[in-house]
């Protein structure tokens, strides 16, 4: 078998995973919105994104992002990267909007 350094950081099947967290949590509004964004981007009208692209983008975030971000944080980071990759949005546009929203929230 090949060595483990060829294994993606997401490809954890069979590895020790530590104790199982059995606590439940309600989905937050922002998580629901991320899910809705993904549904809308992939619908027949837009066809801007596929689940396969989402997965590939998540697998490309880097190990620190993968372990440090929550499930839906990984989704939205991956979605943003794919939108920039496809030229739907520019990184500058995203940064500008984040700055506007942050300023408004701080005011």
């Amino acid at each position, binding site marked *: *078998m090949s060595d483990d350094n060829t294994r993606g950081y997401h*490809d954890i*099947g*069979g590895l020790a995973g530590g104790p199982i967290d059995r606590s439940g949590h309600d989905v937050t509004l922002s998580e629901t919105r991320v899910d809705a964004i993904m549904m809308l981007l992939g619908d027949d009208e837009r066809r801007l994104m596929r689940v*396969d*692209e989402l997965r590939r983008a998540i697998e490309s975030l880097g190990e620190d992002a993968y372990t440090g971000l929550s499930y839906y944080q990984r989704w939205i980071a991956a979605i943003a990267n794919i939108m920039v990759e*496809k030229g739907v949005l520019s990184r500058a546009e995203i940064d500008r909007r984040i700055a506007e929203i942050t300023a408004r929230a701080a005011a």
Partner: protein
Amino acid sequence: MTARFAAGDRVRVHDRHPPGHVRTPFYIRGHGGVIERVCGEFRNPETLAYGAAGLPRSTLYRVRFRQTEVWPDYAGAGADTVDVEISERWLDPA
């Protein structure tokens, strides 16, 4: 396109580690099992992941593996199995 394998056939998963998006789990690569069912034809997730059309379609199979074959230190029952859905692109006859 006709399916290369049928339920009951013995198969072995390729021991490959290509770059990019792969749906065949690392832990099952190189292992041998039996076709449990033919799942149908699907586009290729490895190329869909990069915005391509994912064609041509290829047959997907549910493959059943013995846990004692997959894990060298498996401590559960000898009859235990794990089913993994694997594309024909990743299978050879065993």
